[in-house]
């Protein structure tokens, strides 16, 4: 037997203190198999040991919440017996090493989390961050990630309906690939992972177990260095065909009442799924690895327990229902095996080739996993107003910004995703939020993922607030009532007090916004150690939100609809240029304070705008975010007439004197709406009566965008700049 040396302990990502704790919990030294199991179960990825104490501060409840964090995904009530199940998860490290498979298996993993709970996935979203566009690896990573997401999602027949993409040098050697899955179930048919009761069969189904992905969870919990690409063998390989079969077979099994508990095998595969099921059910689990369907001969217990082979599930069935389940998996040509039994010992016992390969108390793997109150320092938020050239012509800057890496059209990406399969996509990528109908009803779900990492870097707490507020605003802008969120917290190394401070402050900001906006967090994922050679990424707490439109026919879109509509700005414009896209793209400065997020104003302005949409008075709305007011107007014009950009606008500067601040400032809590002249006057009067700042900026019409009657630019010219950047960038791909 291999002797466990301090070097082996360190290779498993465990500290000497953690190893000592394992010895205490077991009452003896672990063997290699047990050490492997502890290393994954106690990894940051599985145990949330650095963040757990802080995540507890987030609001997770509300009348709409059926299941909050702790299960495979969150569940909310969307009325009429329908439930929406969703979660976002990262696959950052694997995607940097092997972008196609990393991204593909990220999609597969999050889909399994959702259908494990009884939901049919109906929409996928993703939040991607790449390094600078001219980084030598950028094209390779963009091309691989996009085709990996498409390759998996398209085969599954689940539409990928939206997302966000940023380019910044802080991600040069550590890209972020966060995927979100949204599914639908009935509230009375939701499946959990608690393996309650003893003497019940533990069954394995799906693909066979191979040697791929061993120690993926440990890899995801370590910093990258130049040798990380040698870890390519630890990236799993996805098989969307197998996942499609697994989805259909699992849902078919769920239509029977044979299942007691079910859990997908994600990070740390068999180990994590069995320990979690036993832990939640307060039971023990005994597995016989000889029964596990294996892809390769002579696999060891260590390899089988730590394998992250994809497209596998573990379930506990009611006794006597095995044959019925087996028939379903046989029909779908998937492996099925009874591999163990639940017990009342609260121990995880692994047998292999007639001997006990591991024997551990389950609580030692879960509840007793270390929780760290890591030391942190909160740095002073960036402050001040940067200087800029106030005389620069507005429309030339606009054109330049629309054709920049962060602002350009993402059509090159989303045309590679099947976004219309399932035939319920009411709003495709390109708007504020994706809108997907609840099949066979007039209801629809709105979905958006948001975070502005440069704000988070300047001021993690305000940035955390802003991520939530912008998501809430995007859902509102299509007319949906925001219901709940999932968070994907991407940060650097939590053992550095400054990074830990970013985590603590961002979670505080997220919590404040979620509470103020009644927008609880029902699921989530943390990805830490996103650093390369000691340099952390921008703090990137991505927020994925879901909202409900009771009547999808009332949905608003950003596109101008008619000539002669009055363009109305809702919310106050102070001309905040700190950390703005304008400052970065035009003045070359990443400076100043992040914009303040006034949650009271967010709520008041959002509720006002939503009401206008819900009552059918406004069908054209856009939230204001990156690039500010003039960018939003340009986007509304470019989206008109099915994206042909047929309807322009003439608008004038209102409220403040500084033209740059007015047109490009990124003040929060603002929307643009366009309404027919006859309605506009009443809308403005109602807003003013409610104490909401509004301004009439001008009218839609013509085929150009004109400001102050002095300068103008053809919408088609803006369109060209906006559409050209991505295809031009990727042309050098091969």
């Amino acid at each position, binding site marked *: 037997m291999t002797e466990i040396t301090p070097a082996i302990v360190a290779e498993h990502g465990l500290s000497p203190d953690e190893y000592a704790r394992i010895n205490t919990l077991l009452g003896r030294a672990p063997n290699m198999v047990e050490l492997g199991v502890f290393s994954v179960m106690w990894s940051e990825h599985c145990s949330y040991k650095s963040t757990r104490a802080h995540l507890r501060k987030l609001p997770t409840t509300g009348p709409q919440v059926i299941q909050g964090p702790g299960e495979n995904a969150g569940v909310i009530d969307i009325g009429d017996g329908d439930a929406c199940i969703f979660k976002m998860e990262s696959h950052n490290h694997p995607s940097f090493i092997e972008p196609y498979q990393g991204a593909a298996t990220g999609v597969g993993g999050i889909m399994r989390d959702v259908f494990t709970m009884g939901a049919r996935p109906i929409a996928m979203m993703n939040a991607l961050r790449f390094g600078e566009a001219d980084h030598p690896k950028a094209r390779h990573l963009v091309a691989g990630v996009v085709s990996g997401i498409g390759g998996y999602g398209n085969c599954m027949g689940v539409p990928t309906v939206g997302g966000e993409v940023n380019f910044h040098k802080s991600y040069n050697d550590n890209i972020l690939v966060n995927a979100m899955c949204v599914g639908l179930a009935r509230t009375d048919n939701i499946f959990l992972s608690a393996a309650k009761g003893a003497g019940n069969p533990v069954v394995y189904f799906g693909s066979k177990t191979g040697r791929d992905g061993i120690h993926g969870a440990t890899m995801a919990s370590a910093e990258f260095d130049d040798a990380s690409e040698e870890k390519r063998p630890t990236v799993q390989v996805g098989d969307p065909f197998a996942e499609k079969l697994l989805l259909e077979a699992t849902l078919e099994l769920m239509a029977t009442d044979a299942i007691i508990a079910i859990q997908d095998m994600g990070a740390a595969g068999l180990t994590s799924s069995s320990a979690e099921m036993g832990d939640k059910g307060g039971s023990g689990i005994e597995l016989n690895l000889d029964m596990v369907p294996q892809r390769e001969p002579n696999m060891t217990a260590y390899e089988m327990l730590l394998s992250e082979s994809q497209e596998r599930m573990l379930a506990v069935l009611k006794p006597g229902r095995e044959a019925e389940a087996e028939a379903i998996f046989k029909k779908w040509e998937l492996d099925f095996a009874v591999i163990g039994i639940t017990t009342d010992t609260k121990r995880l016992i692994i047998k292999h080739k007639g001997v006990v390969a591991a024997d551990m108390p389950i609580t030692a793997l879960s509840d007793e996993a270390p929780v760290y109150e890591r030391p942190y320092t909160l740095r002073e938020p960036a402050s001040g107003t940067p200087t800029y050239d106030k005389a620069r012509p507005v429309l030339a800057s606009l054109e330049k910004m629309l054709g920049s890496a962060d602002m350009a059209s993402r059509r090159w990406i989303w045309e*590679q995703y099947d976004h219309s*399969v399932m035939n319920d996509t009411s709003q495709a990528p390109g708007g504020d939020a994706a809108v997907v109908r609840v099949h066979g009803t007039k209801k629809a779900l709105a979905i958006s993922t948001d975070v502005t990492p440069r704000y988070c870097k300047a001021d993690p707490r305000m940035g955390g607030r802003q991520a939530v507020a912008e998501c809430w605003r995007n859902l509102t802008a299509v007319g949906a009532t925001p219901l709940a969120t999932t968070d994907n917290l991407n940060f650097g190394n939590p053992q550095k007090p400054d990074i830990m401070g970013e985590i603590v402050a961002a979670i505080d900001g997220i919590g404040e916004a979620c509470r103020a906006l009644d927008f609880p967090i029902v699921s989530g994922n943390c990805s830490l150690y996103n650093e390369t050679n000691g340099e952390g990424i921008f703090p990137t707490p991505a927020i994925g939100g879901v909202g409900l439109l009771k009547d999808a026919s009332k949905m608003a879109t950003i596109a101008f609809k008619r000539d002669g509509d009055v363009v109305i700005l809702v919310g106050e414009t102070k001309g905040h240029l700190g950390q703005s896209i304008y400052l970065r793209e035009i003045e070359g400065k990443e400076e100043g304070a992040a914009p303040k997020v006034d949650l009271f104003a967010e709520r008041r302005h959002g509720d006002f705008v939503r009401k206008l949409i819900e009552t059918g008075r406004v069908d054209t709305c856009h939230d204001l975010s990156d690039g500010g007011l003039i960018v939003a107007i340009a986007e509304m014009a470019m989206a008109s007439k099915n994206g042909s950009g047929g309807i322009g606008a003439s608008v004038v500067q209102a409220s403040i004197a500084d033209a740059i601040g007015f047109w490009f400032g990124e003040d929060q809590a603002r929307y643009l709406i366009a309404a027919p002249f006859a309605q506009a006057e009443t809308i403005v009067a109602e807003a003013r009566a409610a104490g909401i700042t509004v301004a009439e900026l001008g009218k839609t019409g013509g085929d150009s965008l004109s400001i102050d009657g002095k300068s103008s630019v053809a919408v088609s010219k803006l369109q060209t700049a906006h559409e050209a950047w991505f295809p031009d960038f990727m042309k050098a791909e091969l």
Partner: protein
Amino acid sequence: MKAAVIVFPASNCDRDAKTALTEMTGKSPAMIWHQDSELPDVDLVVIPGGFSYGDYLRCGAMASQSPVMRAVKAHADMGGAVLGICNGFQVLTESHLLPGALMRNAGLKFVCKPVTLRVEETQSAFTSGYDNGQSVMFPVAHGEGNYYADDATLDRLEGEGRVVFRYTANPNGSARDIAGILSEKRNVLGMMPHPERVVDGATGGTDGRKLFQSLIETLS
């Protein structure tokens, strides 16, 4: 009109086909599992989009060998109508119910977007409700929709009025902008664009309704 939809293990537009047929005919089509070797008595068989067997081999190659395809061939041989959409078109060429082959898109990428098609032929059960030369907007969503056949076959297809739909802006490099073709007996149509996704105005348009209406009028 009675219809059946074939379900391969990784078909993924089977539900969309079912929804569209139910909406248009007022009754639910029969859903036929790929292992079945018999079809019920139906007027129309739809082979839906998706990835049939994962399509790791040539798209549709494995599906063409499945038990149900023998029954589909028999149905077509008897003059029964068959509509293959997207992966269904690939299955039909692999089964030799239609000539030619569908190759990887010229741009080497999956492409999903609405495309404008010209209706080239209204002398068919599938298109009799359209006007000749009419423009319609259907979405495409495929990685391998680049239609190929030798020049003699293409000449013959054109000469016999069997090119039913043509792209006005070719998204995939298809020979002669071909989007959909008929069999010799004009009872089998294969097309890459998705008519079943443009039946319901709330999700992209209604230009596909006439295709189903034509079938209902001709086959009922």
